[in-house]
């Protein structure tokens, strides 16, 4: 088989935003392997300057339609941090619940609509409607549940409006929560179906491994998406989120103009697999059982397994959501009015997006007008790792030929669930 390939994927499909793949190899010698991002930069950090602290969430939610709740949460937490606002336990639980809505929606969307077609040899979910109608309906049901949680708690499915500094603009009724709980319980068997479908296809994922550093939030009490400190698989030490710049270490690679991130190695990975590798010990029973179904264990370093970790996490957040609702209902929903007053200061918000750890930092003047912003998105943190994966992957799988290699590389990019439209700041190399 020929060992020469020339791959130029202009705008990888079934990902959020635009990314290109460039590979050139001649007679088994790899000459060029590049992961490029030609997304139109949108300059959010410049745009928020001068805007009111009350509008920051509204603005930065628009960084990404897929992770709008996550960006909103990070922004609100940062604003509260800057303004010295504490929130109640009730608010905390409701936010986690809302945040879980997005994890469910995003993970199911990614695994079900964007990745499943690869595993089933299709170009999109559309033909699956005919070939796998029951599975597609199951996926739709689970996806709708995620959306439903966001709609009832966030006021909308995308770009939530209920989360304000200090609390919620509108609280759900206990009846709503009871209804949510029923829906969550009802989706558990559906998730089982999805897990089994993915498990039955998991052997179609390339057997590729590359050890790397995984970074995610960690918290002593639970498998966290919302609280905690920054942890790494490379060290026992955890880092306070206020020090996130010391973790992401944005740098310019000598061979590239792209800003990459590194912590203990030349790249690190964030996302579902990272969270799993750090927090797997805290999975709730059903999620742990799902992980066993796949044989997924801590220390997994096949990036394609990120999709599997997403399935495990979907079960985890559904389980935890049910717990949270029980806790909320036990105490009863108490009326609360969010109160916060602007002051000069700086704050950091950090939460886990479905695709990995996300950092927001803002500074405000005494009128609460934003003076400075720094946003570090998960996909930005994964770019260097994707590039490193490519560099290891191409020589190893070159012999499979251009078409297969191309598909696998696209799948590899998709495995990271990149959210390129999140691009608050990216630098990238040449265009294809």
């Amino acid at each position, binding site marked *: 088989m020929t060992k020469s390939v020339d791959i130029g994927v202009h*705008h990888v*499909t*079934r*990902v*959020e*935003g*635009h990314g290109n793949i460039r590979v050139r190899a001649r007679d088994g010698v790899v000459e060029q392997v590049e992961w490029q991002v*030609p997304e*139109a*930069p*949108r*300059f959010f*950090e*410049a*745009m*928020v*300057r*001068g*805007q*009111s602290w009350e*509008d920051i969430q*509204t*603005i930065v939610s*628009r960084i*990404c*339609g*897929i992770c*709008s709740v996550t960006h909103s949460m990070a922004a609100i937490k940062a604003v509260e941090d800057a303004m010295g606002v504490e929130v109640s336990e009730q608010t905390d639980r409701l936010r986690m619940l809302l945040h879980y809505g997005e994890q469910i929606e995003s993970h199911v*969307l990614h695994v079900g*609509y*964007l990745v499943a*077609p690869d595993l089933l040899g299709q*170009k*999109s*979910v*559309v033909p699956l*409607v005919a070939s796998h109608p029951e599975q597609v*309906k199951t996926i*739709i049901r689970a*996806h709708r549940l995620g*959306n439903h949680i966001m709609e009832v708690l*966030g*006021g*909308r*499915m*995308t*770009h939530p*409006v*209920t989360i*304000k500094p200090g609390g*919620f*603009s*509108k609280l759900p009724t206990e009846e709503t929560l009871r209804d949510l709980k029923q829906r969550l319980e009802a989706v558990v068997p559906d998730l089982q179906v999805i897990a089994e479908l993915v498990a039955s296809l998991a052997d179609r994922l390339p057997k590729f491994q590359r050890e790397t550093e995984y970074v995610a939030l960690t918290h002593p009490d639970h498998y966290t998406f919302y609280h905690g400190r920054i942890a790494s698989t490379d060290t026992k030490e955890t880092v306070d989120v206020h020090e996130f710049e010391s973790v992401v270490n944005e740098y*310019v690679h000598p061979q590239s*103009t792209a800003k990459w991130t590194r912590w203990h190695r030349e790249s690190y990975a964030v996302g579902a697999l990272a969270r799993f590798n750090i927090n797997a010990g805290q999975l709730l029973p059903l999620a742990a059982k799902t992980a066993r179904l796949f044989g997924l264990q801590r220390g997994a370093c096949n990036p394609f397994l990120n999709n599997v970790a997403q399935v495990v996490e979907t079960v985890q957040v559904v389980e935890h959501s049910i717990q949270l609702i029980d806790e909320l209902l036990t105490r009863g929903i108490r009326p609360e009015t969010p109160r916060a007053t602007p002051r000069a200061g700086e704050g950091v918000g950090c939460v886990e997006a479905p695709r990995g750890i996300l950092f927001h930092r803002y500074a405000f003047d005494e009128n609460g007008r934003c003076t400075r912003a720094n946003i570090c998105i998960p996909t930005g943190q994964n770019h260097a790792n994707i590039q490193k994966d490519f560099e290891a992957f191409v020589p190893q799988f070159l012999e499979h030929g251009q078409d297969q290699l191309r598909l696998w590389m696209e799948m590899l990019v998709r495995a990271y669930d990149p959210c390129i*439209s*999140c691009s608050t*700041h990216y*630098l*990238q190399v040449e265009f294809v």
Partner: protein
Amino acid sequence: MSKPKVAIFDFACCEGCQLQVVNLEEEILDLLSVVQPVEWREAMSEKSDTFDVAIIEGSITRREDEERVRAIRERAKVLVALGACATVGGINKLKNRFAMEEVRRCVYDAAADMPHLDTYPTKAVGEVVKVDYQVHGCPISKKEFGYILRCLVTGKEPFVPTYPVCVECKMQENVCRYEFNEVCLGPVTRAGCGAKCPSAGFWCFGCRGLAEDPNVQAAREVMAEYGKTPEDLQGRLQLFNGGKEQAS
């Protein structure tokens, strides 16, 4: 009637409006019964050179985007602007308050001069090419999207409200956000959203663009009576309705 071929293209945006199309869930099957998607990068790998309907999501923020959208317009019989970024420029217009050079430097510092970071003041799609149908909102309402698509396929002019959000807020039996002393843009913002934000206890921030013949001057006067400054109003008005344009 043969099914029109539909292609969805995205420019500078969060892709949240495409997500609303995905969020139609089972209704997507209904949608597929009236149109044939031939290109939709976010959801499918197929690409197509021929299509009848082009749906454009996102704003035009670079010269190269402008060329691309013109090329799409030339090939499309019908062009739909999807969502606030496309219909009014949306949140992306916030950057128009600054000089572009300054915006680039703010975010990219020393690397700001790299060619791919080229950016120009954000434009709505309609500021570059002729738009046949507009689906307003950030994000769009999936229900309205379905309705407009059905109108498009059957050759009808859809009913899109020109009146302010207050109409739907009253229909939802909401208490006016002004009573909470908030800067709510409902009285000058185009309805059609079902007043989702005020119904969730939040002010309207104007994502569907201005209502027809909006009384912005009255808004300034009324704000003052509620103890708000023109800057408070301005700050919120420019979120979705343009940076410099509204300043006058």
